């Protein structure tokens, strides 16, 4: 059994790459039952009135398999609901990801400044967010494209957080959904939704349990569930089979190496 413990890491990487490539070349569907968090997320957006204002705190810097498909799928449903969306980024690298997402969700058909606005990167992290929700135009006088926000139709009736109907905290780091919950949703008692990476999800369960966030997309799996609900299989669904297979292989390797370890230990009478 010692060979299992001595498997080269290069071999593991090679196996993982092959496992990821095969389902990408020969895709196959996987049945994914819809969970309660994703269903709540869908229902909250579904219950929005037309022209509801959504403040979307979005942190996505690459076309990854989690935050990016979450963004595209959410925007598709928000577009169907005719919601007005204001994008806000904590990280400078998120501005480009935001644009890719709303382009893919078909937002270029809508009217910029009336149906959506991309404020872009807002420096200053949490302290600025606390000021922003009290005076949006004052803190962000120009949008991502250097257009003055004061003259935009959206900001003629949206001035503070009180004019916002829904807050979405999305991203995989700090500051991010945690800051939206602490500084905006809890103090101003706003309706909140959450979209995070799998890695971030374990730290967010408390907010779901407390009812701060009413629904959530937790990792790629959460997004696959949500794509099923909106009836548009997107990037998360497309990339789910490789994730699933790679995960099974990793679990298999972990179990095998642990069995080998305990077997060796039992042979030596419990001494390492």
């Amino acid at each position, binding site marked *: 059994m010692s060979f299992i413990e001595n498997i080269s890491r*290069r071999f593991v*990487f090679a196996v*993982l*790459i092959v496992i*990821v*490539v095969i389902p*990408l*070349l020969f895709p196959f569907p996987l049945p994914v039952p819809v969970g309660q968090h994703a269903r709540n997320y869908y229902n909250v957006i579904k219950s929005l009135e037309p022209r509801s204002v959504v403040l979307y705190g979005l942190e996505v810097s*690459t*076309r*990854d*398999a*989690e935050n*990016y498909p979450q963004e595209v799928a959410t925007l598709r449903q928000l577009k169907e609901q005719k919601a007005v969306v204001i994008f806000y980024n904590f990280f*400078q*690298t998120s501005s480009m990801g935001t644009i890719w997402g709303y382009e893919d969700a078909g937002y270029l058909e809508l009217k910029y400044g009336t149906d959506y606005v991309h404020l872009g*990167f807002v*420096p200053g992290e*949490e*302290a600025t967010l*606390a000021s922003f929700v009290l005076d949006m135009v004052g803190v962000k*006088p*120009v949008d991502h494209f250097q257009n003055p926000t004061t003259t935009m139709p959206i900001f003629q009736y949206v001035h503070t957080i009180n004019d916002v109907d829904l807050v979405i905290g999305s991203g*995989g780091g700090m500051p991010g959904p*945690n800051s939206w*919950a*602490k*500084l905006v949703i*809890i*103090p101003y008692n706003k309706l909140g939704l959450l979209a995070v*990476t*799998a*890695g*971030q*999800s*374990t*730290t967010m369960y*408390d*907010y779901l*349990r*407390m*009812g*701060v966030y009413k629904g959530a997309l937790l*990792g*790629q799996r959460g997004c696959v569930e949500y794509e099923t609900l909106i009836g548009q299989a997107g*990037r998360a669904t*497309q*990339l789910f089979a*490789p*994730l699933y297979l*790679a*995960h099974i292989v*990793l679990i298999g390797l972990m179990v095998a190496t642990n069995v080998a370890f305990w077997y060796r230990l039992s042979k030596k009478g419990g001494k390492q």
Partner: protein
Amino acid sequence: MEFTAAYASMALSTLLTVAIFSFLFRENRVFRLAEHIMIGTFTGHTLLMAIKNIRETGIDKVLSGNTILIIPLLLGILLFTRYSRKYLWIARYPLAVIIGVTAGVTARSEFQGQIWRQLQATVSSPLNNLNAIVIFVALLATISYFTFTIKHTGVVGGWTRFGKNLVLFSFGATAAMEVLTRIGEVTSRVEWLITKTPDVTVIATLVFIAWVVYELYIKNKKS
């Protein structure tokens, strides 16, 4: 495929991705080059964005008559005194303002969001299902582990060890979920490689395989 600026950019991205992946075999010069390009690009972008933000939120507003904003701009400039041994002490003032403002803004929300609301949710939820019971017991055990005013021996020791194991269990769950995220990153990158610029990917991969074969067999044989 037509050679356009967009294609060249995607091809460069593919080459850099393969260069970064080559680290999985061994650290090498191509990997280091890609790493330095990434760090350099990010630093340049960060610097540019910082200058842009100071101009937008500070200088432009001061020039348009909002003279009070001279104070934060001056405080910002004072931060640079930390590069001088003689005037290092001056940098403490802007730093104190930054820390004070951040603490003031977030203190209430930290307490409300991280402590009060969580306690409320735990204490007020009825213990009528397994999930609620697990959360309640885990809360008590974990708090016990971080209570150092009593000795962790005997029954208390067993209880606090249980609390410690729960903390480790939670770290394990977080690490496992992080692995899922990282596999997702790899998947999306591999998908990029095989769909966006398959021709460049094939060439780069063949070069990579040739290098691996050279390192593993030919070079070893020579030495």
